[in-house]
C-alpha cells in the first residue's frame, strides 16, 4: 500500500476585505477541496481563470494560510508544524512559477540565484555549492558559464530551465509547478515539458502541475482535478477524465479546446462559397 505523499482535506480559502481585493465581503477563492497525490505521481490541476487553482497551489506551498481544512505532507499537518520543522518543509517542497520574466531577481547572476537555496539551508561550502550549480545547469541543458549571466540575458525557455534547476537544487521530494510553460512558444514548451518529465523521473518527485492548458495537463499528469469557481468538479485518472468526462463542465471544457489532432478525424467542412 503506497501512502499518499500529499493529502488535502476540506481545504478552503476566503479572502477577507483587503486593499488589493475588490470584494468587500469575503471572496471565496477555494472551497472545500479534498485531493491526494500518491508518492511519485503527478496531479494536474486544470481550470480557467478565477477557478482558484493558483490559490490552492500557494496554500500547499505555505505562502498563504488556508481559512479551513488541512494539508498533510508525508502525514504531517503543515499548519501545525513546529517551527524547527519548517525549514525541512521548505526543503522538501519547491515551486516552479509561471512567469519567466519575474521569477528571478534581475540584479543577481544565475549562479547566485541557484546558490541561494543552498545558502539559506546552510548546505555545503563555497566549493561544493559552485560544483552543485554547475552540475545542475548541465542537468537542465545549460552551459556552465551561464552561472555568470543575468536573467535578462536568457530566453524564456532558458529561464524556465533555470527555474527547474532552482526547484530541484535542494533535492526536494515535491515540486509544485504553476503554469510553467504558458509564456513559452510551443517548440520551447515541448522541451521544457520534456525536461520536467525527465527530472521528475530521475529524482522520483511527487508533483502538482497547475495549468489552464488541458493538452499540457494530459501530457504530464497521472491524475487530474478539474476546478471551477474554487471547487473541484471532477477528479480521477487522466485518461478516464479526458476520454469519459462525467461532469458537464469538464465536458464543456474539453469540447472547447481547439485541437489540431482532431482535424485528421473530422469530416471535411464544405466550403461556403
Amino acid at each position, binding site marked *: 500500500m503506497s501512502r499518499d505523499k500529499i493529502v488535502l482535506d476540506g481545504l478552503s480559502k476566503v479572502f477577507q476585505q483587503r486593499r488589493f481585493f475588490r470584494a468587500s465581503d469575503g471572496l471565496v477563492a477555494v472551497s472545500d477541496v479534498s485531493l491526494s497525490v500518491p508518492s511519485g505521481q503527478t496531479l494536474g490541476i486544470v481550470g480557467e481563470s478565477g477557478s482558484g487553482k493558483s490559490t490552492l497551489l500557494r496554500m500547499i506551498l505555505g505562502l498563504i494560510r488556508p481559512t479551513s481544512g488541512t494539508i498533510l505532507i508525508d502525514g504531517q499537518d503543515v499548519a501545525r508544524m513546529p517551527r524547527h520543522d519548517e525549514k525541512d518543509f521548505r526543503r522538501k517542497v519547491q515551486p516552479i512559477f509561471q512567469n519567466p520574466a519575474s521569477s528571478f531577481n534581475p540584479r543577481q547572476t544565475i549562479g547566485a540565484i541557484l546558490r541561494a537555496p543552498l545558502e539559506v539551508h546552510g548546505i555545503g561550502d563555497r566549493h561544493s555549492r559552485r560544483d552543485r550549480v554547475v552540475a545542475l545547469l548541465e542537468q537542465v541543458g545549460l552551459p556552465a558559464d551561464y552561472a555568470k549571466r543575468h536573467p535578462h540575458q536568457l530566453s524564456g525557455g532558458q529561464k524556465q530551465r533555470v527555474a527547474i534547476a532552482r526547484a530541484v537544487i535542494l533535492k526536494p521530494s515535491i515540486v509544485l509547478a504553476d503554469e510553467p510553460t504558458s509564456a513559452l512558444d510551443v*517548440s520551447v514548451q515541448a522541451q521544457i515539458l520534456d525536461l520536467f518529465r525527465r527530472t521528475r523521473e530521475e529524482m522520483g518527485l511527487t508533483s502538482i502541475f497547475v495549468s489552464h492548458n488541458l493538452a499540457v495537463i*494530459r501530457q504530464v499528469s497521472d491524475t487530474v482535478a478539474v476546478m471551477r469557481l474554487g471547487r473541484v468538479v471532477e477528479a480521477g485518472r487522466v485518461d478516464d477524465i479526458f476520454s469519459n468526462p462525467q461532469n458537464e463542465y469538464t465536458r464543456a471544457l474539453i469540447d472547447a*479546446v481547439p485541437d489540431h489532432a482532431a482535424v485528421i478525424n473530422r469530416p471535411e467542412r464544405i466550403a461556403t462559397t
Partner: protein
Amino acid sequence: MIEPRAHAVKGGTPTLRIRDLSIEFSRRRGDDLRVVDRVSLDIWPNEIVGVIGESGSGKTLTSLSAMRLLPKRARIVQGTMYLDGTSLHDRTERQMRELRGDRIALIPQDAMQSLNPTLRIGRQVGEPLELHSGLSVAAAREAARKLLQSVHIRQPEQRVQEFPHEFSGGMQQRAMIAMGLALNPQLIIADEPTTALDVTVQAQVLRLLREIRDDKGTSILFITHDLGVVAELCDWVYVMRYGRIVEEGPMRRIFTEPRHDYTRMLLDATPSIRDVRKVQV
C-alpha cells in the same frame, strides 16, 4: 506546388494581396534587421486565412503593415499591397486613416488595453460610425446597441451604458469585435484575439468570427501561435518562421501532410488532448 484554392475567384481580385513584402527594423548599432522577408499572401472574399508562427516570426508585423500601423523603427523596404485590387502603397496617411476601421478592421490581442477605461462601451463601439459616417452621438449609440447584440452580448441596452472594467474578458473582446464590425469592413485582421481568453470563452469568440464570415462574407486574417485555433477556424494557412513563409496550403492538408520540416516540428511539439501520443522534442 501550391494546391488550388477553394475561395479564389477565377478572374476576380483578392480582398488583400501582399507581394514580396520585406520589413526592416532599424537598430542603433549594427545593420538593419530584416524581420519580414519577401512575404506574399492573399486573402480572398469569404475566406478565413490563418497566419501561424512563434514569437519573432514576423506574423504581427506582416498584418500590421496592411494597415500601415508599423512601429516607428520598422519600415517597409520592398513589396506591394493591394486592397480589393487597388494599391495601398501610394496612399497618404490621411487616405489610410479613412481605410482603417472603414474597410479594414483590427481586432487586437488585449481588449482591456485597447478600450479606453474612461469611456462608456456604447460610445466606443459607436465611435467608428461617428468618425467615418458622421453619425450623431445618439444615432451611434443606437447602432452600438445593435452591434453588441450582433456579437451576442445580452441586455445590450444596459451594457452600452457600462464601462470596460464592468465587462468580463470575453465580453471586452466581443465589444472589440463589435467595434470592428461597425462599418462592415471587407477585411478583419485579428491578431491573437483569443490568446488572453479562457478556452470556453475562446470557443465562443471563434464561433462568432465564423458566423460573421458566413453572414457577411467578410475576409478574416487570423494571426495566432495556436495550431488548434487554426484547425478550428481557418480555410487557408500560412506558416511563418524568422520572417518568411515556409509553407502555405489548405488547412486540412497542412495538418495531415505537412511539407515543411518546421510545420512538422510545430505539429509534433503541440500537445493534443485527444491524442495520447507524447509530444516530441
